[in-house]
């Protein structure tokens, strides 16, 4: 009920077996992270959830309402400014200016994508996905190219927004700390043909302790002890 359920989903590209029977259940309003080696099929999985690709076998059950998707590459419209890029896909083009401030977009609102650095482009990409306000948010390595300080503040803002609005979130990342900060559950994928090789339920600290990072380092050590290949 309202959950996102994948049952035995598999996918091949020609003779290349990518996903080989994925079973996952993601409860409504939960946040999960997918981790796994490059090319193991994380993007493919997320594209299938978004409905952009059809699975070769298995089933995907999604609650209605659609998904917002921050693609792995920014996919900005080259002939529109940052502001236009953010509003173009929205039904309601009015955006609260504090939103721009929160995500560090205010300065670049009138720039064109080709005038932006990689990290700035990625910020626009994340901002756009957040503005869609759908019941499901898919984010494919959204923090690549973004510096540590911004990353932390983004994670905070998104977590707050999630608490207010309540949406399910799936994050693909190679950064364990990012995953721990963001998610309730982590899923680990193996190499191609890939399956879920492990699951980790994050022990979140009480709200008051969240701002210190000690719990994060503790949690990280525990995960690395079980999944040593996700160390750095």
């Amino acid at each position, binding site marked *: 009920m309202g959950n996102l359920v994948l049952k035995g989903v598999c996918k091949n590209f020609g003779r290349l077996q990518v996903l080989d029977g994925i079973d996952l259940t993601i409860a409504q309003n939960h946040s999960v992270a997918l981790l796994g080696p490059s090319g193991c099929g994380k993007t493919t999985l997320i594209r299938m959830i*978004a*409905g*952009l690709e059809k699975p070769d076998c298995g089933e995907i059950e999604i609650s209605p309402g*659609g*998904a917002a*998707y921050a*693609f792995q*590459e920014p*996919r900005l*419209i*080259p*002939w*529109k400014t940052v502001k236009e890029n953010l509003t*173009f*896909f929205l039904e309601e083009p009015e955006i609260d200016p504090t939103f721009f401030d929160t995500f560090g977009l205010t300065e670049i609102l009138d720039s*064109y994508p*080709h005038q932006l650095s990689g990290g700035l482009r990625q910020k626009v990409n994340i901002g756009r996905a957040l503005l*869609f306000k759908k019941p499901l948010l898919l984010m494919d390595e959204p923090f690549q190219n973004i510096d540590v300080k911004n990353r932390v503040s983004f994670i905070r803002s998104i977590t707050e927004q999630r608490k207010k609005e309540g949406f399910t979130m799936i994050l693909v990342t190679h950064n364990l700390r990012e995953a721990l900060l963001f998610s309730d559950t982590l899923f680990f994928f193996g190499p191609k043909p890939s399956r879920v090789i492990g699951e980790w339920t994050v022990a979140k600290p009480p709200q008051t302790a969240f701002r210190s990072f000690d719990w994060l380092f503790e949690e990280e050590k525990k995960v690395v002890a079980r999944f040593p290949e996700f160390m750095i």
Partner: protein
Amino acid sequence: MKTSICSNLFKYALGLLLIALVWELASLWFHSSLILPRLSEVFAEFFGLIDEASLWMNLSSTFLKAFSGLLLALAIGLPVGFLIGFSAFFSQLLLPGLVLLKSMPIISWLTSILILWGIGWEAPVFIVFVTLLPIIIYNIAQGIKTVDKQLLEVVKLTHLPFRKAFAGIYLPSIIPFIISSIEISVGTMWKTVVAAEFLAGEKGIGVQIAWNKYYVNTPTVFAYTFFVILVGISLEILLDAFFSSPFLKRWRGLWAT
């Protein structure tokens, strides 16, 4: 935009000189004003013509016909091009007709055209229209194929209304193709309208050329042709300036950066 016209003029200067040089060398080599008159002869005729009111009437008549044909071709060609680009069904339905339009010699159906439109400005306009139409349609349809598939996925995902996607994604992506079809068309239309007037016109440069050709007034034929080319080159310069103006640079920038 003013300075850009000037700089364009200057850009063309060298090329114009080259043409003049090649022309003079060729006419010296042929040594017959029947084949290729000396530039001086052509210019003498040219300046003689400038004083005549009839020249300007003919020129404006030809110009109007060419432009009406172009505008008509754009008005029909753009939507049909989009239709063909978007819909496999329409593309299959209309493609053979397009090939037909493209490869059917005007002379074969000149009679039908004349019966339909009579003698006057309509037939030349129609001929220009029919000549440019397939070029424009092909270009637009080709352009739609090149629209970034990644952006279209975003459109699909966000259930963006078609109207908005059209105006915000398709149209701007296709601007370079529209520009290129205008550029090709603007050149071709002169040739076409003069030929059409030559075949079936009551006035215009083409009629004058036909008449002077009959009397083997080669310098005058070339003087009239010069007017056509001059208008053609001026238009090219104007278009160039327009298309490289800041207004359009934004779209073109897509390709330049």
